[in-house]
């Protein structure tokens, strides 16, 4: 297929941006300033020949001036006029709904419906048609389904902000309650059951194409503060990722980041995507963070200039959101092809490399700096029915649970005792042991008839004087299976080594584990109810498994005709372990991992 780098540029006129109101007070000219910022953003995009999507906010629908501006730009530049469910705060909203809340997914069901109907009706009154695109930082399945049912014209929505969860909360001094970890990083068709999960079939298709709120650095955002590393120029300034040279500020990282998003076409049949959506608060005239307004404005201009240059070279296709939805559906003919990203460090100067994969069955990340260890795993196969908002069990936490999250839950390295969540392989010989997590490598990508394959450069483990050279291969099948091959590629001279493929898991959305006594572990028909006693079942069998009712997930591993072990943790280390072990002197062991919906 043709190479396409699709870009969405989105602007929202807030008139009453929450950042500015809080910092400077509602009556201090923020309305006019916000309007100026919107006009600046629009003019800058158009200056470089780029099309935008104008997402009207609730507050802006009361402004004749903004409505006329939007109509003008739609007619002159082909911009799309959409409707945002961000930017709700304004006098009229507060008086009507008697609340200071402003995140659509946090309202109760009745208010979600009332606000959606209110905003869409006002939009229709102003423009004479219903929008084709909408969005928020996060849109839960309930809200998406309601919007699609009532306003079928909507075909595209901003539906999550990638890895905005505990990291964002901590960065904002534990005050920013946007918990929405665990979704895809690039556009997807959301399931009707849970908007994080890519749809598995036509019946599961919510009818919209979802896009992320920002295109974020798939390494820096996972490892650190999510809000500094995205295709959002002011995020880059927030991270202090700029320097001064000959009187001018420079930020090559922003261009490197856009370029790496372009590079992802290599892993997705020629398709790549990028979006920029800078809210007006980030272009505050008073400056933001340590950056004066002049730098904020310069960085926005430079970003648009770069997009414009790529467009002029025929290397970028600027689309409105609804245009993108049509393009995306035409380009993605089935529901089973996984989104792939083989991502390299472009900021810290390391050789670190991640592979991200998202399909209707799972989202996962392999870290080749840890030998290809699985450091993140989300069980989309479980299709968790998560309701969010007041009146539900998740008032604010919309994150999709992990089974493995090596940063929240330790990963390979722990302090003296216990174990962290990670999936890797241990190698043993003559009583000595090493974990492939300690073997740094890189990998190459291949497309196969049934999915994709990542092949690591071989690594050498030396135990008791014996060099054991191992190649790891990870295959992601369209049916949801993950097949791992550990291949010994040197001559061991007849010596036998033991390979143990293991999965240390947990579950949750934050760093803290809930009670695990609902967990059951087993090998074939033998089972163990979790009681924090550190007990195990070991047998030569077919399948080692874990049932996690709290996240409706069953994990199964099998495949090598090995010794299988399922172990519970202890109170100090609330995790579970599944492993497959085999002793070989040459050849390989091949194991598989499957996630299923349980209960």
């Amino acid at each position, binding site marked *: 297929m043709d190479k396409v780098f699709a870009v969405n540029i989105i602007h929202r006129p807030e008139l009453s941006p929450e950042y500015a109101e809080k910092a400077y007070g509602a009556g201090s000219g923020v309305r006019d300033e916000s309007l100026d910022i919107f006009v600046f953003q629009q003019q800058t995009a158009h200056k470089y020949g780029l099309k935008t999507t104008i997402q009207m906010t609730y507050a802006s629908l009361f402004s004749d001036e903004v409505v006329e501006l939007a109509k003008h730009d739609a007619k002159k530049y082909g911009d799309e006029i959409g409707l945002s469910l961000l930017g709700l705060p304004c006098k009229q909203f507060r008086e009507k709904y008697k609340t200071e809340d402003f995140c659509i997914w946090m309202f109760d069901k009745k208010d979600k419906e009332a606000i959606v109907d209110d905003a869409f009706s006002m939009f229709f009154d102003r423009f004479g048609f219903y929008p084709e695109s909408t969005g928020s930082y996060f849109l839960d399945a309930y809200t998406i389904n309601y919007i699609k049912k009532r306003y079928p014209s909507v075909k595209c929505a901003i539906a999550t902000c990638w890895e905005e969860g505990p990291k964002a909360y901590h960065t904002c001094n534990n005050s920013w309650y946007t918990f929405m970890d665990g979704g895809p990083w690039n556009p997807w068709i959301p399931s009707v059951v849970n908007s994080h999960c890519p749809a598995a079939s036509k019946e599961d298709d919510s009818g919209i194409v979802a896009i992320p709120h920002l295109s974020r650095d798939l390494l820096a955002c996972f490892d650190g503060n999510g809000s500094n590393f995205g295709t959002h120029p002011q995020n880059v300034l927030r991270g202090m990722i700029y320097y001064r040279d000959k009187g001018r500020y420079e930020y090559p990282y922003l261009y490197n980041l856009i370029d790496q998003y372009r590079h992802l076409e290599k892993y997705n049949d020629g398709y790549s995507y990028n979006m920029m959506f800078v809210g007006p608060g980030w272009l505050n005239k008073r400056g933001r963070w340590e950056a004066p307004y002049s730098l904020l404005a310069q960085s926005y201009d430079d970003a648009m200039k770069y997009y414009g240059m790529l467009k002029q070279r025929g290397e970028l296709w600027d689309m409105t959101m609804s245009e993108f939805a049509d393009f995306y559906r035409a380009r993605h003919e089935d529901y089973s092809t996984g989104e792939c990203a083989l991502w390299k*460090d472009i900021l810290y100067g390391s050789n670190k490399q991640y592979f991200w994969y998202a399909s209707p069955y799972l989202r996962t990340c392999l870290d080749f700096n840890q030998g290809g260890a699985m450091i993140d795993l989300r069980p989309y196969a479980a299709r968790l029915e998560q309701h969010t908002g007041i009146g539900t069990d998740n008032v604010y936490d919309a994150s999709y649970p992990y089974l493995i999250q090596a940063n929240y839950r330790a990963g390979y390295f722990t302090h003296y005792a216990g174990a962290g969540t990670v999936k890797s392989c241990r190698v043993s010989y003559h009583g000595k042991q090493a974990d492939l997590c300690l073997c740094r490598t890189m990998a190459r990508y291949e497309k196969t008839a049934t999915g994709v394959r990542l092949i690591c450069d071989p690594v050498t483990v030396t135990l008791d004087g014996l060099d054991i050279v191992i190649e790891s291969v990870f295959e992601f099948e369209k049916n949801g299976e993950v097949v791992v091959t550990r291949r010994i590629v040197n001559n061991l001279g007849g010596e036998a080594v033991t390979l143990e493929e293991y999965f240390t898991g947990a579950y949750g959305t934050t760093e803290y584990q809930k009670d695990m006594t609902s967990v059951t572990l087993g090998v074939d028909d033998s089972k163990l109810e979790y009681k924090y006693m550190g007990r195990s079942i070991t047998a030569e069998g077919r399948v080692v498994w874990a049932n996690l009712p709290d996240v409706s997930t069953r994990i199964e591993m099998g495949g090598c005709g090995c010794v299988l072990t399922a172990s519970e943790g202890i109170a100090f280390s609330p995790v579970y372990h599944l492993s497959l072990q085999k002793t070989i002197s040459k050849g390989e062991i091949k194991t598989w991992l499957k996630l299923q919906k349980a209960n």
Partner: protein
Amino acid sequence: MAQATKGKLNYRCPSCFMRDIDIDMFYDSHTEEYYCLRCSFRGKRGEVLKLNQQARYRYKALKLRVADFGEDNEPVSFKPHEGGAQ
């Protein structure tokens, strides 16, 4: 002595920034220094700017432009960024 205020720009605490916490400092006009509510950092504007510069130590590719993403299993190759270029 009057209460502390925000500075002209909202300088964040450099000590907290290094541990991934963004927290604005407040300005004490009496001592002409910024201080953090979360930790014990205090410092004049010049010291804040110097520490912000130091905080960039981890960005080893700060001034580099990607020349080539290379083969999958090769490191990215960089070149020095030319001022004003994209």
